């Protein structure tokens, strides 16, 4: 069953904490408007590759190369929306 959006947001906060090595209490402060790629120094191109791979493992989705853009990784809310949309299909 697809998790509701708050639960999905918590899952993705946990995922970001795991992959980027940032403290859980810091990840817990991430809101929809929190900027990610370009603003989080931990999120370099290598980390993006690992983040996408971990998203695929945990969420059971496939992320195609042409789906990775500024909307998807620009903000925390954009990332949650993307995964939510994938799980809805």
């Amino acid at each position, binding site marked *: 069953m697809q998790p509701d959006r708050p639960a999905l947001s918590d899952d993705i906060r946990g995922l970001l904490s*795991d992959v980027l090595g940032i403290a859980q209490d810091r990840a817990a402060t991430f809101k929809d408007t929190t900027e990610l790629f370009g603003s989080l120094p931990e999120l370099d191109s*290598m980390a993006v*590759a*690992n*983040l996408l791979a971990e998203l695929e*493992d*945990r*969420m059971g989705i496939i992320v195609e190369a042409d789906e990775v853009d500024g909307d998807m990784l620009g903000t925390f809310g954009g990332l949650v929306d993307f995964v939510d949309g994938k799980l809805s299909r």
Partner: protein
Amino acid sequence: MTFETRWLAALPAFSNLADQRFIVLILQPLFEEANRTRRTLALMARALDRQGVGVVMADLPGMGEHPLCAKQVGISDIGTASNLLCDALTSQGRPVLVAGFRAACLFDSLPGASANWRFAPEPGDRLVRTLLRTEMPEETTEAHAFINGQLVSRAFLDDITRLPLPNPAHLRTLRLASDRAEADRHVEASPLWRHAEPGEDPALAELLAEDILQWAVTCGIS
């Protein structure tokens, strides 16, 4: 026993071999994932050593300290090297349990091995998907992809994409609790192989060592 790095079957290997009752052959994750997990695997090796188990953790062709660089490696090099190493160990007359991690499990069905154990096995196509996400096109050539600061043969990437995970006879599989794929046991831990920097997880190392030991008992090789 004392661990030392020495050459075994033409591979540089971290090992403690003496007169232990059986040997665990650790196949490390491939490429950058090996660096991110090595400290935890070394802790696991030491935990096994404290239980009187022989451990061999070798660097496969193109990986770690192996003199062959990734640019020159094909999947047959890794398969042949794994087979030769396992053969060299089983020829000593002691059972060998193969412990495969991540995509190294693609090469873990080795003649003569008594049992297999896996942690978070990754199919070849998933490995290549992740590798190619870090490809730098400006450094790439027709024959090689520039990935994680090194050239990797496109033939190798094509071959490993199509390589299925083997299905050895006595197999136990562990995965992370966050991984949806099927397993005999799911364990709570962070995916070290995804971390930006190499880290270590002593609790996970102990848990994995205990599970391997229990599997050896179940398979009658302890």
